[in-house]
């Protein structure tokens, strides 16, 4: 029988501080939504009990997502850079593994959002010549990200051709 195959997870995770950053992001999304739901219930309805119960469930779900989602993210988002390739895994429901050979990498950028800066984090974006979008490694320590970008840039500059 032929052996069954699977893709092993990439070796590295995001920086542990990324959990706090994702939590802040989740809060920024969940708090206004929950607040709007509560306000709408209070102002625009007759406040029936069944709707109240539904509202409580909804708000609890929002709270749960703030607590749970960043931790799940931390478990699912993984990355690895070898001599020959950049390898990432993302997503929980739809899991996506992406591999870009080093010889086809065109540019490497680090991006630091305002909230990320507070946590000393940075994203690394690896672009190839494909129109299908770049590979993104989220929530790395900013020094590590800078070092990684530099290393990748050095490797790609030594590759001949236009990477198409």
């Amino acid at each position, binding site marked *: 029988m032929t052996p069954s195959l*699977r893709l092993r997870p990439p070796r590295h995770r995001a920086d542990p501080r990324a959990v706090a950053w994702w939590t802040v992001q989740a809060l920024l999304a969940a708090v206004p939504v929950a607040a709007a739901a509560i306000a709408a219930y209070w102002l625009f309805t007759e406040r029936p009990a069944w709707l109240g119960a539904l509202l409580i469930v909804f708000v609890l779900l929002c709270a749960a997502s703030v607590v749970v989602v960043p931790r799940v993210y931390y478990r699912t988002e993984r990355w690895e850079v070898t001599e020959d390739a950049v390898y990432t895994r993302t997503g929980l429901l739809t899991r996506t593994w992406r591999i870009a050979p080093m010889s086809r990498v065109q540019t490497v950028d680090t991006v630091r959002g305002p909230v990320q800066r507070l946590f000393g984090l940075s994203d690394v974006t690896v672009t190839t*010549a494909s129109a299908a979008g770049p590979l993104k490694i989220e929530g790395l320590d900013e020094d590590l990200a800078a070092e990684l970008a530099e290393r990748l840039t050095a490797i790609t500059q030594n590759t001949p051709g236009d990477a198409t």
Partner: protein
Amino acid sequence: MMPDVEETATGEESGWRAPHPRVVVAAAVFSLAVAVPAAIALARFLAGRGAAPDVIVAVAVAAALLVVGAATVYETARRRTTRYRLTDRRLELHSGIWTKEYRAVPRERVRSVDVTADPVRRALGLAVVKVGTGEKHASGGPAELTLDALAVTEAEALRGVLLGGRAERPDDGPLAELRWSWIRYAPLTVWTFVGGGLALGGLYKLLDTLGFEPGKSETVARAWEWLTATPWVTVPLLLAANALLGLVGATALYAESWGRYRLERRPGVLRLRRGLLTTRSLTLEERRLRGVAVTEPLLLRLGGGARVTAVATGLRKAEENETEEVAALTPPLPAREARRIASEVLGEELDPAGLRGHPRAARGRRVRRALAGAAALAAALGMLDAWTEWVPAWAWALPVLAVPAGWALAAEGYRSLGHGLTRRYLVTRSGAVRRRTVALDRSGIIGLTVSESLFQRRAGLVTVSATTAAGEGRYDVLDVGRDEGLRLARHAVPGLLEPFVEESG
């Protein structure tokens, strides 16, 4: 020592050249498209106000002359400020009346040269040259340089020089030439059925802009009355008229787009020429070619037809007034012919029988999706009925009909699924309505993506995508068995996946 070889080079190709003087005439002719309707609208307006006939004529003619004059002045200014030059290393272009622009394309980056002449420019002996490179422009689209317009001989000479004379060498017969019997495939598009309505809408809008207000006219009102009075006669009659109009339109469009079609291979380049009134010719470097796609949309497939497009880097997007994709290599033609041309362009047999099918689970996914769609339609109708009580009884036929139709499409979609790996190409086929077989050069794969949704995981399926710099940037092998998919990805680009794959069991 010369300080700069390019500056001191002599000969015609080194000097700055302007667009051909007759572009001004062409612009004047084009401006008639605005001038004439404007004059008519003005004349109607004045007539409505009860102006004297000679005043009306004078004003209308003056307005038309004003528009034509403005276009002529503008074009003269544009021509005077546009200069191009071909040096040993690059093609340079200065342009812009107010905003000066300078663009230079290194000659070794030139990947395609596109020479187009619409009927007006053709009558004047002019052609527009578009030079494409593999680069991306800052705005995201591929960078290209347009010379509007040169004398035809100058345009052809420029093309020859830019592609290193390769395009001008003799060839060993064309890959394909138009056969007029192919025109039977022309009506096999959706446009045949909606084209008539669109044409009517266009006519209505044109009349409206000219100030005829067709909505309020007596004739239209009477026509509407006649239509609604005897629907059992008029509706089929209208549908037949629409189909006839669509048929004529689609056939005419095919003839205009693909008349004089000829596809040739010369050393290192593919060259395509087509067009009855507007002639277009595209020269494509073979090293930019990353494969071909054979597309069989449902109607065309039922008629036994197919068409071939190129998967190439650095092709520009089709403009709004263009009816065909820039990458189109053939018109709709017999499927066997399409396969032959695709195989010759690939340099390898493209054999649909050699493709491997996908697991039954992929069929189940498609059927479940179709049934869920029908159920969602039924639920939406039910809700609408409960709230508005407006839904007529016949509407319930829709979800009922959606079940067999969806089922058939799901089965067809499953039959379409297939993949294969040849010496040079990764081949993938999918699509129920628009079935497409893509052969992608394995050396042009610049990344791999494997994705697995929750439903796919339960069914043991994955989608393997190869990313590339050409075409859509990404070609999927949909719903392939997990092991088979990973094995395919592993072999498609040797070594790339190796460090990340584990074997078990």
